[in-house]
């Protein structure tokens, strides 16, 4: 069974995550070639290129689709470049998907890559007193981990989460990522090591927070008609969600100073982060109970626990329970972050949501090696970008 809203994932490829310090275009080209080889297609077969932009690599980064297309050799393909912070990759995937579903092309390449500076992400330069991203650093010193710390502490205060729970997430994901050739950190951590690492933003320790990385990821998407001529059972993208919040958004989000006011309109029944996967579930006619495994955006260990509830794997307050009982570990009923997640990768912003889809494809094809989720049929990837960007992809086989 396939609906008329599905596209095929014919090929996937990545450049390993690390701190390589080279031009982001190199990682993009490497990933694109790997995805094309995986699909058994030539670059000249690609009719549409969707690039995920990077904001930290100058003009070539703002036109990433063309920068990488030029490096691959101009082939006359139509192009788009898009940005949605951490959700950039989902937008690029959705652009390609929409174009294929509209019948405007059969084969599209989606690619994103980044080269990141050392240390905290900082806003763009200059004095920009109307830019909330500039203001939050200037007036509050509110780095990204400050927001992660607020969510983590809230979880402790409301649900009784503990430092041990956060450390348990890191230990789990470090075990998952051990054999992943594309992961940057392949080291098994103990709970003691995590809890003994330096506090960055209380209650979060260094090992609770994801690093920033270089990396690149690409997928080749195709129409189902095109794919069926090449493979009997392709992995399919069943839904993509790129939702924005609904007013009033009453949870503090990067890079804001304040939430919306709920004086005139009540807060929506479904909070923003819950709405991200929900839109994908509704679009695909799939529910959280059908999900074999999930890749979630673990900017911090504590945030992974929030996601369990946001995507419906656990009821509010129950995330720690399904972590502790092994449900979300490899071998459990619904493993989360079998790739190792951001804890093993670090963040390469425009590549991240695309790399999530790469992992979904490898798992659904049964090619994930030692991190394979047995019998995986449906995979969910979720992510959130600052300035109100939701990102979810459901894939199945």
């Amino acid at each position, binding site marked *: 069974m396939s609906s008329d809203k599905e596209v095929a994932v014919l090929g996937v490829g990545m450049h390993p995550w690390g701190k390589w310090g080279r031009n982001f275009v190199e990682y993009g080209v490497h990933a694109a070639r790997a995805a094309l080889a995986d699909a058994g297609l030539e670059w000249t077969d690609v009719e549409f290129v969707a690039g995920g932009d990077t904001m930290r690599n100058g003009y070539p980064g703002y036109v990433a689709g063309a920068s990488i297309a030029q490096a691959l050799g101009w082939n006359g393909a139509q192009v788009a470049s898009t940005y949605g912070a951490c959700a950039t990759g989902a937008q690029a995937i959705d652009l390609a998907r929409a174009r294929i579903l509209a019948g405007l092309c059969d084969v599209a390449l989606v690619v994103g890559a980044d080269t990141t500076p050392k240390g905290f992400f900082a806003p763009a330069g200059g004095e920009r007193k109307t830019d909330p991203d500039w203001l939050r650093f*200037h007036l509050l010193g509110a780095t990204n981990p400050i927001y992660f710390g607020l969510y983590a502490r809230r979880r402790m205060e409301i649900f009784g989460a503990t430092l041990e729970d956060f450390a348990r997430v890191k230990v789990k994901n470090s075990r998952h990522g051990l054999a992943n050739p594309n992961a940057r950190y392949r080291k098994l951590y103990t709970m003691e090591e995590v809890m003994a690492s330096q506090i960055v933003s209380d209650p979060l320790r260094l090992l609770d927070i994801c690093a920033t990385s270089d990396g690149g990821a690409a997928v080749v998407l195709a129409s189902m008609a095109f794919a069926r001529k090449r493979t009997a059972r392709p992995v399919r993208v069943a839904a993509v969600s790129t939702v924005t919040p609904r007013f009033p958004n009453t949870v503090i989000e990067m890079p804001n100073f304040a939430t919306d006011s709920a004086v005139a309109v009540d807060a929506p029944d479904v909070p923003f982060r819950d709405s991200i996967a929900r839109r994908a579930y509704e679009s695909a006619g799939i529910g959280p109970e059908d999900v074999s495994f999930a890749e979630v955006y673990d900017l911090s260990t504590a945030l992974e626990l929030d996601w369990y509830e946001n995507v419906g794997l656990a009821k509010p307050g129950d995330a720690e329970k399904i972590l502790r009982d092994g449900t979300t570990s490899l071998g459990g009923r619904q493993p989360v972050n079998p790739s190792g997640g951001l804890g093993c990768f670090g963040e390469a912003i425009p590549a991240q949501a695309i790399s999530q889809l790469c992992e979904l494809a490898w798992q659904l094809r049964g090619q994930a090696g030692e991190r394979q989720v047995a019998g995986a049929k449906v995979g969910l990837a979720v992510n959130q970008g600052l300035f109100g960007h939701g990102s979810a992809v459901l894939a199945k086989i």
Partner: protein
Amino acid sequence: MSAQRRPAMDGWFTLDDAAPQLLGTRCTACGTYFFPREAAFCRNPRCAGSEFEDVPLSRRGRLWSFTDNRYPPPPPYVASDPFEPYAVAAVELEREKMVVLGQVVRGVGCDQLHAGMEMELALEMLYRDGDTDVVTWKWRPVHV
């Protein structure tokens, strides 16, 4: 006390040391509050309001969550040398039904904070610019 001081942002808060207030706006059509101030368009998707009144926000609220920063943030934050860690609070204002972030006053760390406690607005130096103290709003527990 140095001779001069100025706010880190003009028009964002009053310079009343005893009882400072954040300065927001309120849509005259639907009543939605905004901080930082919004005076061009209402962000309620079902409101076409374009007129706003200036309103000082509630001085007190309940602590929604809190954290701190142990490492100097990059510019444009002006970090002290040696770096002095600071806590950050998210405070829920009952009348405005919104949560507002702010640093916590010097000398109050996470170990003295818990969700739900009453907080009030204070003014404190953010950094020194030559011989001028640049001040900003901060949150302070009412009972510590």
